[in-house]
C-alpha cells in the first residue's frame, strides 16, 4: 500500500487490518493535523468552570446556611430534624400522590395525542407546537382562577383538581419530550409493519411504539415530577399544603430547615434523574447481553449468505 493512500482518512478505514475505533475517531488520531484541539479543550474547560460556579455557588451558599442551624458552627440538625417537623410528612405524601396522578394522566393524554398528530395530522404539528406552549405564557394565576371558576364542586373538594392543573402545566415539557421521541423512530413504517402482521392499534401501541419511545416517556416523566415537586403558585391558591408550599410556610418558623428541605428536594430530583438514566443504560446493556447469550447458544454456526 502506498503512503499516499493510507494518508487518506476515508480510504484508510477500508484497508484490511486498519480500522478506527470510536475513541480514535473522537480523539482524531487518524484525522490528520490536530493543532487546534488544545485551545478548543481549554475554552471548553473555561466555559464549564464558569457554568459550574454559576450553578453551584448558590447551592453551596444554601448548604452552608442550612448547616448553621443554631446560628453558630456547623450542624446537621436541620436535616436530621426534617422528618419530625410538623406537616412535612403529609406535604411530601400529597406531592408524591399528585406527581403519580399527574404522570398517569399526562402520559395517557399526551402519548396517543403525539402519535396521532404525527401519524394522521402532520399538518397540525405547528399548531400543536403553539398550543402546547400556551401554559408557558399564560400565568398560572390566570389558569387557576379560571379553573376554580368552572370546576365542579366535587372536584374542587379534592386535591386531584390540582393534579389536573399540573397536567396542563406539564404539557409543554411532556409534549416536546414525546415529540422528539416520536421523531427519532420511523413511526409510519413501524405502525404499518405491525398492522400488516395483524396488530391492532392497542397492540401496536403497547408492543411496538411504547417500548421504542421509552426514553422519551421517561424524560416526560422526569420533567413532570420536577414540575410537581417545585410548583408553588397553583398549590398555594388552591390552598393545599404540598411540599413547595410547606417549604415556604415553614421558612417563617425555621429558615434553616426550610432551606435544608429545598436542598433535599433538589437532591431527590437528581436521584430520580440518575435512577431513570441508569434504568435506560441497564436496559441497553441488557439488550447487548441478551444478544450475546442468544448468539452463544448457537456456537459454530458459519456466517453464511448475504451480509
Amino acid at each position, binding site marked *: 500500500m502506498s503512503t499516499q493512500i493510507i494518508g487518506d482518512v476515508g480510504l484508510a478505514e477500508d484497508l484490511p487490518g486498519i480500522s478506527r475505533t470510536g475513541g480514535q475517531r473522537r480523539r482524531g488520531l487518524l484525522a490528520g493535523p490536530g493543532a487546534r484541539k488544545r485551545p478548543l479543550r481549554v475554552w471548553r474547560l473555561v466555559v464549564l468552570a464558569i457554568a459550574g460556579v454559576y450553578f453551584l455557588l448558590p447551592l453551596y451558599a444554601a448548604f452552608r446556611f442550612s448547616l448553621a442551624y443554631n446560628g453558630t458552627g456547623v450542624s446537621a440538625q436541620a436535616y436530621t430534624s426534617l422528618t419530625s417537623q410538623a406537616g412535612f410528612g403529609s406535604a411530601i405524601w400529597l406531592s408524591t400522590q399528585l406527581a403519580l396522578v399527574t404522570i398517569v394522566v399526562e402520559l395517557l393524554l399526551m402519548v396517543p395525542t403525539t402519535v396521532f398528530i404525527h401519524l394522521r395530522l402532520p399538518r397540525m404539528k405547528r399548531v400543536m407546537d403553539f398550543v402546547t406552549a400556551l401554559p408557558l405564557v399564560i400565568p398560572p394565576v390566570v389558569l387557576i382562577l379560571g379553573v376554580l371558576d368552572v370546576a365542579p364542586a366535587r372536584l374542587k373538594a379534592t386535591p386531584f383538581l390540582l393534579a389536573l392543573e399540573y397536567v396542563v402545566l406539564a404539557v409543554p415539557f411532556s409534549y416536546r419530550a414525546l415529540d422528539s421521541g416520536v421523531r427519532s423512530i420511523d413511526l409510519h413504517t413501524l405502525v404499518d*409493519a*405491525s*398492522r400488516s402482521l*395483524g*396488530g391492532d392499534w392497542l397492540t401496536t401501541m403497547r408492543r411496538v411504539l411504547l*417500548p421504542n419511545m421509552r426514553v422519551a416517556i421517561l424524560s416526560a416523566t422526569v420533567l413532570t415530577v420536577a414540575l410537581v415537586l417545585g410548583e408553588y403558585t397553583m398549590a398555594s391558591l388552591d390552598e393545599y399544603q404540598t411540599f413547595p408550599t410547606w417549604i415556604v410556610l415553614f421558612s417563617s418558623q425555621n429558615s434553616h430547615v426550610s432551606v435544608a428541605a429545598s436542598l433535599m428536594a433538589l437532591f431527590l430530583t437528581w436521584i430520580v434523574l440518575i435512577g431513570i438514566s441508569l434504568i435506560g443504560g441497564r436496559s441497553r446493556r441488557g439488550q447487548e447481553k441478551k444478544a450475546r447469550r*442468544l448468539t452463544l447458544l448457537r456456537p459454530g454456526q458459519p456466517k453464511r*449468505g448475504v451480509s
Partner: protein
Amino acid sequence: MTAISGPNQMTTPAATGSAWGGGSPVEAQGGTAVVLRDLCCIFGTVRALDGLSIDISPGEFLALLGPSGCGKTTALRILAGFESASSGQVLVDGQDVQSVPAQKRNMGMVFQSYSLFPNMTALENVAFGLRLRKIGTAERKAKAMSLLEMVELADRAGRYPHQLSGGQQQRVALARALAIEPRVLLLDEPLSALDAKVRVQLREQIRALQRRLSITTVFVTHDQDEALSMADRVAVMRGGKLEQVAPPAELYDEPQTPFVAEFVGTMNRLPGKLAGPGRVSVLGREVVARGPFANGPGGQDVDVLVRPEGLALAPVPGANGIVSAVTFRGAQSRVDVLLWADMAVKVDVPSPVAASLPVGSSVEVSLVSDNVLVDQAAGQISVNQEET
C-alpha cells in the same frame, strides 16, 4: 434443514433455488388471485391512481414498475389496506377486501425502509405475527427459527436490528412477512436501500423463495433491472394509469406505447415516414410499423423507436455515421454513432466487430428489425433512455 450453498454461487435464480430451497417452515401455497379493478385514488388535487386495473394470477410474481409518483406504491398500499381507494375494487380470491382493515387482510409486507421493531431481536421480530395469532411459545420460536434458517440468519437470531446490516435486516423482514403465511406478499422497494452487490444477491434469493412457495407477490420498484429479472409479469405505470402489463421479454421486445419503449431499456428515436397503413420507411428500409401512430396517412413524418440491438454497423467510407465512442460490455460493445452529423444513436455490436471500429471512423448505420414502434414525430432525434 436446508442445503446451503455459498453466496458466490447464488448467481442465478436457478442456483439460488438450492440456497433458499428445500424443506420450508412455510407451506407452499396454491396462491391467491388478486384483482385491482378501476382503482382511483385522489389525494387533495393529486390523482394518484386513475382507473388502474390489473389481474394477478395465483402464485404470480408481478412487478409494478414506473417512475416516481406514478402511483405504484399507492396501489400497493391500497392492496395492503393502508390507504383507501376513492373508487374501484380490490378483489382477493374474488372477495372485495376494501372494508377489511390492514391487520385482518393477512398480507405480509416488506418495506423500503428498514422496518424491524428496534426493541425486538431478529427472532422476536419474526415471531411477532405468530404471537399475535396466539401460537404457543415453543411452536412460535421453533417456526421463527426455521424461517431465520431459511433466510440464512439463524446465527443472528439474538441480534437486535441495529446489530444487523441492511441486507440482513431486509432478510429478517422477509422472514417476518412470510411467518404469518400471508395470502399475498407485498414488497415495497425492499432492495432500494441496499448496496448493489447485496441487492443483486437478495433479489435472486427473494425470487427463488417466491417460486418455491408459489406465493402471490406484488413487487414495487422503479428499477427496471429488478423488475425484468424477477417478475413473471411487469406492469408499467405512468400517471396513475397502467401503460402495459406483460412478461419481461414481451415488454422489452414489443412495447405497446412509446413510454414503455423508452422507460424499459435503451431506445433510439430515428426519423421515418409512414409508407401506408402499418408500414414505415426508415434508414432506407420499409418495415412493419406498430403503435398508436402506425396507421396514419402515407408520407406522414413519424419517429421510429429502435433498440440498440435493432441497428447494425458496417465500416463504409463516407457513410451516414461517424463513431464517437465505443464502450466494451463483454460479448457485446455499445457504439455511439453520430448519425448524419447531428444525431446521436447507440448501436450494440459484437465486441470483435466493435474492435475494428475506431473512434472517428465512418460507418453505415442500417436497420435490422423488421417490426418497429412508431411515435408522433418529435422533430428531434435523440437517445431517450439510458440503461440503469
